[in-house]
């Protein structure tokens, strides 16, 4: 990753920002710094406050508490038209009575730029989003993807310090959405403007972002790279929100010298690794992604290392993988995803088969029981 959010001066900073609607809190104490040139995604279920953060940055809402700094300058009370921030709205909000060209030129006209400068910059940005041939059309004569491009062009032509995108792909069909994701990511790299993107789609967030902030109920629950979020969830909410995950109940029995622990997991003794601190006797959760689990038919298992025994309930063919639903002898139900093995094409999993289940040591995530 190129950006180093810690050392580079932040382009936007939210300090202790809270937002209340009456007595309901939409945001609690948000602290967020975004580095210049970064692509940051706010990811979370609807109503988690991600759009509220966007509207606070764009100036359509003002915080109940805390302050916002844009490029080091306090903009907490600045009107939207006074902020060097532009937005790509969820429904694009293109001006229906203006041509593509006039839509894109609008911001520059508001800045009272010269005619020649407007002309140059509008043509350049339309070329960049491949819309120059359709400059004379009205928005309603464009497809969803084309409207999307115009909305982006209309925002970036102003060279904002920050571009905000509010679920911009929600109106597009699956295939077009994938293409636009890639296109926007390329565009962001080319122009180097900081993007703050809002989505509830985890795949979209991971595919596009340098960093992802996972939100729930008005709080940022974890912020980090896609890989960190997926592989090192800091709490059960994040673990459950991104992808599938198995949660096992365990109790720490002792701490070993090398930072590892011994624990009783689902009735069996295991060695676990974690960066977190636990004490003997503490109840913990052990988190394992389905694709990290290795399933052996019982008769093929070497019976060395640490493993569980269980029984297959269901095997679901998914094309590249097969999803296996199984029940451990302790009664816990788990999900595993196995890739087809080229060398062993005959392998087949059937309901009722006895299996042994293990995982690569150290890939487990151990959380304390409190962190919901």
């Amino acid at each position, binding site marked *: 990753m190129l950006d180093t959010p810690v050392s580079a001066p932040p382009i936007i900073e939210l300090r202790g920002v809270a937002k209340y609607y009456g007595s309901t809190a939409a945001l609690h104490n948000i602290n967020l710094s975004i580095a210049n040139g970064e692509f940051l995604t706010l990811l979370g279920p609807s109503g988690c406050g991600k759009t509220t953060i966007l509207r606070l940055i764009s100036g359509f809402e003002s915080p109940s508490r805390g302050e916002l700094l844009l490029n080091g300058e306090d903009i907490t009370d600045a009107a939207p038209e006074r902020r060097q921030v532009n937005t790509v709205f969820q429904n694009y909000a293109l001006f229906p009575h203006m041509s593509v060209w006039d839509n894109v030129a*609008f911001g520059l006209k508001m800045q009272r730029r010269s005619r020649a400068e407007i002309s140059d910059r509008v043509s350049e940005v339309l070329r960049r989003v491949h819309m120059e041939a359709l400059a004379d059309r009205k928005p309603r004569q464009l497809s969803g993807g084309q409207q999307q491009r115009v909305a982006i062009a209309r925002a970036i032509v102003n060279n904002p310090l920050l571009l905000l995108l509010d679920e911009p792909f929600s109106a597009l069909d699956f295939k077009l959405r994938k293409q636009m994701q890639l296109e926007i990511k390329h565009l962001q790299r080319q122009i180097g403007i900081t993007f703050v993107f809002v989505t509830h789609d985890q795949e979209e967030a991971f595919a596009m972002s340098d960093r992802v902030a996972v939100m729930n109920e008005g709080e940022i629950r974890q912020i980090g790279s896609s890989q960190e979020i997926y592989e090192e969830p800091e709490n059960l909410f994040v673990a459950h929100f991104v992808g599938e995950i198995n949660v096992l109940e365990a109790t720490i029995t002792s701490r070993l010298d090398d930072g590892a622990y011994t624990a009783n997991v689902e009735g069996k003794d295991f060695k676990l690794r974690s960066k977190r601190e636990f004490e003997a006797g503490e109840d913990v959760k052990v988190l394992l992604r389905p694709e990290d689990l290795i399933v052996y038919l019982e008769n093929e298992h070497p019976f060395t290392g640490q493993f569980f025994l269980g029984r297959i309930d269901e095997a679901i063919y998914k094309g590249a993988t097969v999803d296996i639903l199984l029940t451990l002898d302790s009664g816990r139900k788990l999900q595993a995803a196995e890739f087809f093995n080229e060398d062993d094409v005959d392998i087949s999993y059937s309901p009722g088969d006895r299996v042994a289940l293990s995982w690569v040591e150290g890939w487990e995530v151990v959380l304390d029981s409190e962190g919901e």
Partner: protein
Amino acid sequence: MPRLPGGGGSAFRAFGISVTWFWLGAFALLPSLALLLVSVLDRGELDFFIPALTLGNYRELLGPVFLRVLWDSVRLAFFSTLVCLLAGYPFAYHIARARPKWRPWLLLLVIIPFWTNSLIRTYALILIIGAQGMVNRLLMALGLIDAPLVIMYTDFAVFVGLTYTLLPFMVLPLYASIEKLDTNLLDAARDLGAGSLRAFWHITLPLTLPGIVAGCMLVFLPSLGIFYVPEILGGAKNMLLGTFIKNQFLVANNWPLGAAASAVLTLALILMAGLYRLSSLRVAGREKKGLLGGNGDGKNPRREAANLPEAALR
């Protein structure tokens, strides 16, 4: 009439359309044509008109009497419309932006006066603006004036009457077009650096233009034609277009001249309807023009869109 696709519904549809056409033909088109015909016939000594073609009626309209009437009427109608627009726009704007549960009640307040006959409401105005009316009493009680103001039987009284009677016709179409306006567009304008005044000028005003034109038409034309308001509030002193036409038919028994004046009024209506159509088309934007103007065959914009990203990656 184009052939309709088969099925049981098409017979009903054909019937429905025929009835509509018949209705429009019999009660709108035919009388208008009759009026137009009478307007080019000569005036008879005993009959209302005699079957001799002439443009004399229109020539008579060009005379100083009618032109004076027309000028007074248009001036009064213009100012009534202007005041209705200036008062009606903020009014309609606030109803349209009120909380959804309040809107029907606010609209009801606009509509309630319709439940009373407008003739009676015009008489009721006398109670307010008459020499012993509420306005004069109030001003005298406050000591602002010593003698009652003469409001009744002036152009101003007619102007007040027209404005009062026709204001709802301005508010309702304005409300409809402002309510439809997507507030996201105003957010977008502000996001792009427009202050609220410029956002109003560049976005709200052009997008509610059809409502403005419709409202102005619905106020301007009736205020030219209504004859009872000038007659009740303005007395007999100043003749306006509506009164002129009424008098030709009912008092002077000069049907052809009345018909000619009426035809001129109808022509004005058609011109303004054309203007309205033009303004709403400008806002809507014509599909056809854009598709011909753009590149490609224009048949499948989605496919075009799907192809573009590949080009972007090359």
